[in-house]
């Protein structure tokens, strides 16, 4: 899977979890760019991403992410 496909799948997860079809993600997107990206949403997003890509993150990995691109790097490394 290339980065564009991965970003598109993550974007769909964001649409579903945040009930907002207008969200457009880029690798540079951060939680500050999306109004409803709160702590509970973050948990739901991580669980959905783990399910979608069949990966398991560690809490340290999650804490290290600064943006969506770093989440994608982590998925690729898993």
């Amino acid at each position: 899977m290339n980065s564009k496909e991965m970003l598109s799948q993550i974007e769909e997860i964001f649409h579903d979890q945040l009930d907002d079809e207008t969200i457009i993600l880029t690798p540079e997107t951060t939680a500050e760019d999306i109004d409803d990206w709160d702590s509970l949403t973050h948990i739901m997003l991580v669980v959905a991403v783990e399910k979608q890509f069949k990966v398991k993150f560690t809490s340290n990995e999650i804490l290290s992410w600064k943006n969506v691109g770093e989440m994608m790097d982590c998925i690729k490394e898993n």
Partner: protein
Amino acid sequence: MIYNINDKFEESFVIFKNTHQNFIQLSEDRNPLHTNNEFAISKGFKGIVMHGNILNAFISYFIGECLPTKDVIIHSQEIQFKNPVYLDDKLKFTASVSGVYESVNAIEFKYYFRNLEKKIVAKGKIQIGII
């Protein structure tokens, strides 16, 4: 994490008359399907049908009171109603751990409610967080 994939839990529940009445008082849902025997029978049921959301209250009890630890919070809950539940029905609830997400301290359960005929009356998923 004390939860592992496929860990299983079981509980039994009965919808007694007072359970039903307390739920009506709480929800104010007096739809005739739930309160009028003749109406329910005319719609093809054996009698008044219990509110499906009484089962959600049982799930609340399961999560809040029956798990090995109390440091839990419900993140999300899905339920599908498959068959009617009647007054005094005895229900067997089974739940198994279907997902462990250590990175965010979250656990997912798949659950089923079955009646004495072993028919699934409801099923779904619950995600909880360990706080």
